[in-house]
């Protein structure tokens, strides 16, 4: 599929120089969806989103329309929280959405508030994304002045305040209950579900919907074009389009919006108009299909479609839409350590298995890399993993509150399962030749 044929829903203004301004946004159809939504009943807007079968784009992939339906009737106040704390390694789609098209997100948020009958929306943006914060702040100023946000929006009864909140730089705050804690001014640590399902007990103890940036960026298009048109794209439950961030050993790392559910991994990684294939003509060793938490995929998974159910069934996840490609020059043990180190450093410290377990795993891997591995270390690694995520199943079971701990388990289980020989090489003292071979193959 050539770029011209691809339908762009959320990234249509990325090439437009003034797409982030109100003028540029309005010129290309901005805020027409809000006007249209205000002519509909809130329930009708909700129904369109339900019809669209819009899956959450944050990681778990739960249908947004169904999630909205979890708000208990007649409990006030209630809140919308927009999760812009995009921190999963390899994921950088929300950042660009916020930088290039902030009004789209604001419009989607206001429509969502209208559909759910609430008046306060908190836009939580990751602390490190200073540029996105500036763009959103500027866009909010414009939108308030233009009457798209604030009191009596477009002269109607609808009043919505959108509050921009900057994070303080913690990966865990991407987890919705930790984000709520952080928003309340507390240390970002996840809450236990149950009882703290945000739709029941969320921000300030009130019913709260937490949606991802990309999820809400789809709302204006759905309102303008109808849920049916959205659902007509894609396959099965994975409808519409989706943005994937491809990084690693590809020719053209970048963010690509493709039709959800029908495009395959091969299309996006190898496609000339997309990531453009493995760098330097190297061989594919492995790829992470959905962010650092996901179990690894290999050559044989390339022809799987980017469809939630199919990928789940194959033993991994589409997660945050981050595809990290590793070519044959990659040292699996080092790659594994790299990912585990991230989780060890970002563990919030609440649950002992994650706090102590992830850093223990990292220390063992470091020791193996330093040439002090023991033959028993692979069993030890897997048993420590098992104590964090019993059974090492997929989807993971966990002895922790949130999935951060088990996230560190996935790459270890993957790497040991597929590349045990590389671990053994480190342990036995004759390091395998991947690094040397890689030097040759590198362009």
């Amino acid at each position, binding site marked *: 599929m050539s770029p011209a044929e691809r339908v762009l829903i959320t990234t249509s203004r990325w090439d437009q120089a003034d797409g982030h301004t109100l003028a540029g946004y309005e010129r290309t159809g901005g805020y027409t969806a809000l006007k249209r939504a205000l002519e509909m009943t809130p329930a009708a807007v909700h129904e369109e989103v339900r019809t669209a079968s819009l899956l959450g784009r944050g990681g778990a992939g739960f249908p947004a329309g169904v999630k909205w339906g979890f708000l208990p009737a007649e409990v006030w106040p209630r809140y919308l929280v927009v999760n812009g704390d995009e921190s999963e390694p390899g994921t950088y789609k929300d950042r660009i959405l916020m930088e290039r098209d902030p009004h789209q997100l604001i419009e989607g948020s206001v429509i969502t508030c209208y559909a759910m009958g609430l008046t306060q929306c908190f836009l939580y943006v990751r602390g490190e994304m200073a540029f996105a914060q500036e763009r959103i702040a500027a866009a909010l100023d414009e939108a308030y002045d233009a009457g798209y946000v604030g009191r009596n929006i477009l002269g109607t009864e609808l009043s919505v305040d959108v509050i921009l909140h900057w994070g303080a730089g*913690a990966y*865990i705050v991407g987890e919705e209950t930790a984000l709520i804690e952080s928003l309340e001014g507390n*240390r970002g640590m996840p809450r*236990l579900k149950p*009882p703290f399902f945000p739709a029941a007990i969320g921000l300030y103890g009130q019913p709260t919907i937490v949606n991802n940036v990309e999820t809400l960026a789809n709302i204006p298009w759905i309102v303008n074009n109808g849920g049916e048109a959205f659902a007509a794209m894609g396959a099965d439950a994975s409808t519409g389009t989706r943005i994937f961030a491809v990084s690693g050993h590809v020719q053209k790392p970048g963010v690509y919006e493709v039709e959800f559910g029908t495009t395959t991994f091969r299309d996006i990684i190898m496609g000339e108009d997309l990531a453009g294939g493995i760098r330097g003509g190297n061989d594919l060793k492995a790829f992470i299909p959905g962010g650092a938490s996901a179990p690894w995929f290999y050559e044989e998974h390339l022809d799987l479609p980017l469809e939630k159910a199919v990928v789940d069934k194959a033993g991994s996840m589409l997660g945050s839409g981050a595809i990290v490609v590793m070519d044959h020059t990659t040292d699996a043990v080092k790659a594994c350590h790299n990912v585990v180190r991230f989780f*060890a*450093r*970002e*563990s*919030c*410290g*609440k*649950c*002992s*298995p994650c*706090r*102590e*377990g*992830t*850093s*223990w795993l990292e*220390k*063992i891997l470091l*020791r193996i890399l330093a040439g002090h591995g023991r033959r028993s270390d692979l069993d*030890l690694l897997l048993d*420590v993993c*098992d*104590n*964090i995520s*019993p059974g090492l199943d997929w989807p993971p*079971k*966990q*002895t*922790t*509150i949130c999935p951060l701990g088990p996230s560190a388990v996935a790459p270890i289980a993957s790497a040991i399962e597929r590349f045990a020989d590389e671990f053994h090489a480190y342990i036995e003292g004759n390091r395998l030749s991947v690094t040397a071979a890689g030097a040759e193959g590198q362009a």
Partner: protein
Amino acid sequence: MSEPVTFTVDGAQVRTEPGTLLITACEDAGVYIPRFCHHERMNPVGMCRMCIVEVDIGRGPALQPSCMLTVSEGMVVHTESEVTKKAQDGVLEFLLINHPLDCPVCDKGGECPLQDQTMAYGPGESRFVEEKRHFAKPIPVNANVLLDRERCILCDRCTRFADEVVGDPLIHFLDRGNETQVNTFPDQPFASYFSGNTVQICPVGALTAKPFRFKARPWDLEEVVSTYPNPMGDRIAVQSSRDQVLRFQGIDSDPVNWGWLTDKERFSFEAFQSDHRLTDPLVRGHGLNQADPDGDELVASNWSRALQTVADAIAASEPERIAFLGGARLTNEAQYAWTKLAKGVIGTDNVDALLGDELPAHALLGLPRATIDEACRPGGTIVLIGPDPKEQLGTLYIRLRHAVLEDGAELIELTPTATGLSSIAAARLHARPGEVGAVARALVSGQAAADVGGVPGADIEAARALLGGPVTVVLGRASVAESVEPTLEAAEAFRGLEDTRFLLAIRRGNTMGALDMGMHPGLLPGRTTLGTGRGAFGGVWPTVPETVGSDTAAILAAGAAGELDVLVLLGVDPLGDALDPELAQAALDTTPTVVAVDLFPTPSVRAAHVVLPAAAFTESSGSHTNLEGRITAIRQKVTPPGTARADWAIAAELAGYLGADLGIESHADVWAELAPLSAVHRDVDAAAIEADEDGVLVTATGRVSFEAPDRHVELSPLDAYALRLVASRRMYDQGTLVQQSPHLAGLAAPSSLRVNSYDFNRLGVDPGQEVRVVSATGALDIGVLADDSVPRGVAVIDYNRSGADCRVLLDPDATSLDVRIETGT
């Protein structure tokens, strides 16, 4: 009540109340699930993951933290399954990998939950070969508590306690991941009156208390459960080794202190071991213990000489020329013994334990009383008319705070200044000193169109809406700079309100026992009067006084006027504690025989002619009556120093020297004699007190009625240049126990005057400046501090702290007291 639910634990069917936490329900069913972060007096947090068990609610077994899950119908729990055991083993291994195994030098070793549970549930050996996490060992988080972050397992108990239980969120988690640590804010210590509790609830040796560090191994300690003789009657464990008390620990008493203690109580054990304790009777003399009635110093003597001296003085005098001050420090039994000696043997009614700064006896005995539990009941309204509980009644503060934050009670604060509870109060009515009665009347009557006593009418209206249901008035004296009448007016207003009871915020430990035992003019034991009780007691006691005697002020005045021959001080220091120190000095100077029964050589003791050393509450047995009227056991743990004796025994001995027999040979004898005579103590005996750790609650109303005050309280007109004075006590002051405890004495800051920053501008003074404070009766120099919890136009001065002694400013008869600030320029 909803229907009980049935669940299955390890194959056994168990019924329990709905809403019960799984960990508690299992424990009730005899299945103990290991835990570290869970604490039944704090909200669950699910942090340590030790209590995870396999739970099946119809969707297949899954690991769940039992401390955060409530039991539901049909739930199936496996605490012994392979999956559960592997997970728990794993968690323990995780907790241990970075825990330094320094148990042999750790204070917690021997009573350490981590040690115990590792033995019971943990792996045998560590698979962790890397280097453990390192932190500087140990760091002080405040003057008395040290933190060893290497030992810490980050269970969130201490931090939750500081934040949730006592509202002092001064310790927190810092950093993240494996570097996570508990610490204070930079430059801000964990300055909490309750910090010692974190040491008690720490499940490892991370938090240790200086007063106990390295003093003993837990297995060398013996303990008895006892009662701390403070107004709350906090339940404690007294722990000792080699006849030395080394630690007080809170006992989780459901109706009282829930296991908590203030640091003032917890670390005061040091005072009782103090080298300054009185160990032998002292008499006047000179040189090397040469007794001489005219001697100008106290010399060591013996009991027979000292008691004979006292007996001779009493025998040579008339009953009305003999007086007894104090007694609120004593056990119930000692109070009865001394009352019987004074009123029943000697025949004087000049006995007063109230010392003029408590509510009057008719209020303490005549108002309908609430229990602490009733005050804290869900849906109730608490009206605080009295001192700041955080400063004066620490564990009551904790209970009230919990009631408001967790149980939906509403708090109306009717105090002269903000208190430790202000931030959670539904209504804050800061009445001008002297005008609390008027505000209370407006609040109860609902007629408050205009401002009353400095409180906006609208605020009173809003607070009025909270008075629909059951009301508990926490009543006490918020300030000794105003007379008691305004407070009594307020009580009278609330007495007329339906479904209203009173919880009495008294100042001294066993004041309630002292009144119940008749240690006040006109009273006899059993909450009765000389008139009504004469029949009963006249039949058992040799005599009963004919006329009502003198109270503290009158006794001191009589002493100063030379109208007393013998003045007995029962654990009281009038020079340090009486509202009028000059009168007290004159009374002690003039009275020919001053007898002091005490633990420490206080200024008054040093002025006495005969000193009788008494045993502390850790050294004698008996019972204590708390502010609710709950009688709980005090149990001896160690032997008194030297020849010091139990207070009741001193009274019994002295009676012998007077040729009488008190009929008391043990503390239990008191109840055998009193129960048939007292209308309110019929069900009380030593065995009943001993049998129930929650004690015996004496609820019966006695024969003393509340006396409504004259409503027409005269108020001096407000003067724009004056500040209305509040004199209130703080947690740490010049009190004997604080000053005799080395780890507490330094916590008492010098006296200061606190004023709203608005008034600084108005009066032209700067914060920290030394000023001269002038009242109608005196003047003193003091540093002035800005404090915006003090309303405008009001000045707060600390009572009984070092430096400026605010008593020179006080006028015991003034309804309110205005002071001016002079800068001397």
